[in-house]
């Protein structure tokens, strides 16, 4: 049985959490909280600990089984399968919108004349390739891509720090604490909820499973710090008015980087980190879905699921206005459903554990 490292698992989790910030995460955050978006990030980071604790709780229960198997064990075969499929459908919907994010961004900024379907086909190939190889390749690739992303984030951060103006994030809390809380809910649901993906790996297949909990917590803290820095640097650089009107403010802000008059125009290189994070997120989602349906990577299922994602993202989202409206209003309800399922699972685990300790 091939084993992966807990460090690699953590790097996958970090990339999953950061990936949603680009595109829909940032848009909803800025639209709901305005200038106080960074306060929203802090609030969500604090509340997110509860979520992470929940996830770790489920993770540590029955360390030999992956999440679908745990559900089947907890709820019996039929009900467990229903829950598994529900989770898989919600993750499918999430990955469709993430895919649209990726393709839309590339199509609007770089390759404006290429048909969207073909750009999507390119990425579909990458995702199929990485899934066919298995989870250990996904995790190793995630680790290397994370290192590259961190380096480019560092360069981007230093560049943006030069032009940072504190005045741009004032006034503090003009409309009270309500908007940041609303923004923090968006971050919680859109960024942190997808962390459920790492539950697909049974704990015992990790090489050093003692350290996994600490690594995952550290990974969560690091990713929240990164999101916080991103939000505050972008708003501090562009000002809230510009941020609200741009389509991809995260990308536009990078255009301002001018380090020593030498590293100019490097926004294309630095934005690669977003592409990496999105790809790893979608690959992990596909892996999750294939393992829910059938254990041990069936290649045909991988092909079908990925192509379905491609088709769905083309058909459902016709233009950005629809997409923005969807993300702001509807997407969050799916995540609420996911949260409900997670809470259900953890309550059932608690009941089971109490039953077991009563029997003993």
């Amino acid at each position: 049985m091939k084993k992966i490292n807990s460090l690699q698992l953590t790097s996958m989790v970090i990339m999953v959490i950061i990936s949603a910030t680009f595109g829909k995460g940032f848009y909803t955050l800025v639209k709901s909280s305005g200038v106080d978006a960074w306060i929203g990030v802090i609030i969500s980071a604090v509340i997110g600990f509860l979520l992470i604790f929940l996830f770790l709780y489920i993770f540590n229960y029955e360390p030999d089984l992956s999440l679908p198997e745990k559900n089947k064990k907890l709820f019996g075969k039929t009900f467990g399968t229903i829950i598994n499929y529900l989770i898989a459908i919600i993750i499918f919907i999430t990955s469709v919108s993430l895919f649209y994010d990726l393709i839309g961004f590339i199509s609007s900024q770089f390759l404006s004349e290429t048909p969207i379907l073909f750009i999507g086909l390119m990425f579909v190939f990458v995702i199929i390739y990485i899934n066919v190889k298995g989870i250990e390749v996904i995790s190793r690739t995630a680790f290397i891509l994370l290192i590259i992303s961190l380096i480019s984030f560092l360069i981007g951060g230093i560049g943006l720090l030069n032009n940072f103006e504190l005045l741009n994030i004032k006034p503090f809390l003009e409309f009270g604490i309500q908007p940041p809380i609303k923004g923090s809910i968006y971050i919680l649901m859109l960024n942190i909820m997808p962390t459920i993906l790492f539950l697909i790996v049974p704990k015992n297949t990790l090489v050093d499973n003692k350290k996994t909990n600490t690594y995952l917590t550290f990974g969560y803290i690091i990713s929240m710090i990164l999101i916080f820095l991103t939000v505050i640097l972008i708003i501090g650089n562009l000002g809230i008015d510009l941020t609200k009107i741009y389509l991809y403010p995260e990308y536009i802000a990078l255009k301002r980087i001018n380090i020593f008059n030498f590293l100019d125009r490097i926004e294309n290189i630095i934005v690669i980190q977003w592409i990496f994070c999105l790809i790893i997120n979608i690959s992990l989602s596909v892996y999750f879905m294939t393992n829910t349906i059938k254990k041990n990577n069936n290649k045909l299922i991988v092909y079908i699921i990925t192509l379905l994602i491609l088709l769905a993202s083309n058909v459902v989202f016709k233009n950005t206005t629809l997409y923005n409206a969807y993300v702001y209003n509807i997407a969050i309800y799916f995540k609420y459903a996911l949260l409900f399922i997670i809470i259900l699972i953890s309550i059932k685990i608690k009941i089971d554990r109490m039953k077991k300790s009563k029997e003993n």
Partner: protein
Amino acid sequence: MMKNKILVLFVIFLFTGCYNYREINSLSITTAIGIDKKDDNYLLTIQVVNTQKVGSDTNSTGEQSKFITYETKGETIQEALRKIVLESPRRLYINHLQLIVIGEDLAKEGISQIFDFFMRNPEARKQSQIVVAKESKAEDVLKILTPLETISSKNIVDSISSDSKYLGVSENNTFEYQVKTYLNDRQDIVMSTVKVVGSVDKGENTESLKDVSSDAKVVLQGLAVFKKDKLVGYLTEDESMSANLVNKKVKDTLVNIECDKNKYITIELMKPKVDISPIQDKLQMKIEVNGNGNIKEIDCDYDLNDIKVIQEIEKKTEEKIKQNINSVLNKTINEYKTDIFGFADTIYKSNPKYYKTIKDEWYSKNLENLQIDTKVDFTLKGKGNIITVIPDEEN
């Protein structure tokens, strides 16, 4: 298996089929755009880099100008730009745009349309400079060839950047910054201006480059003041320097004080620190200027080793700076009725609740009633290489 994958990859690549492929030689690299308005139509002047290879045969007489100018007309800016293709064989590429020149008439009508066009276009880089052509048309500005820089737009851009470093008359603000200020309802825009000095016709051919002192030149002038998106007036050079000082955009500048009749001392003010702070819950602002400086040139016969003399020079400098600031404040607030220093913004950012009460009548009443206390603190640090004044031969 690997072969299958490579085959699939290659087939996919074939599908994506180089739709966006564009060779460099099929692009017209635009460095400057001038926009004028004429009978409800936009008149565009576009300056494109001439990338023709100079032939290896050295028999060709005359130099090629390094840029080509096109002119088009259209109802909107985008339409005018597309019409270039009727004249030029290459596709217009505005990513390397360095300068946008706006004609005076268009500026008086309103420039929000220009902002909208350039912000929406993903190819346009928002770090270009935007200037107003004072008492001229944009096409006149762009048609002048200049020595020292092969492309005239680069000349203007570099002038602005070095001017803002050494003199402080124009401000080195990118297009994006102007849009940001414009979108912020609580501050008004200022822009650098250029003006064509001399006869336009003479400046248009390469002959003028060969003269040491050419006839037609493009010169930077004082700032243009806008109210919302319409041009309302200009500032003189001294006023522009003070305006930039208060806006914290000045690095080094010069102050002239009169010590005797028609005799002046020139003081260099280095890296001044300006702090604008509102007084809580009152219609009152405080401007504090702190700076050091050196004596650059002195005409009066003062004894520079006397502490009292130094203090007097400092005091006079402070007064002069204060006078300049007050005059620019007077002009913009009372005469033009614009708020280019963002006083409203400052009040809003520190005290949003109070701002709500004064917001509605800001332009009509409150701006004029705003009480501004200016305080200048200047320290004379150095006198240059000599410690006394070289006297006039009077005896």
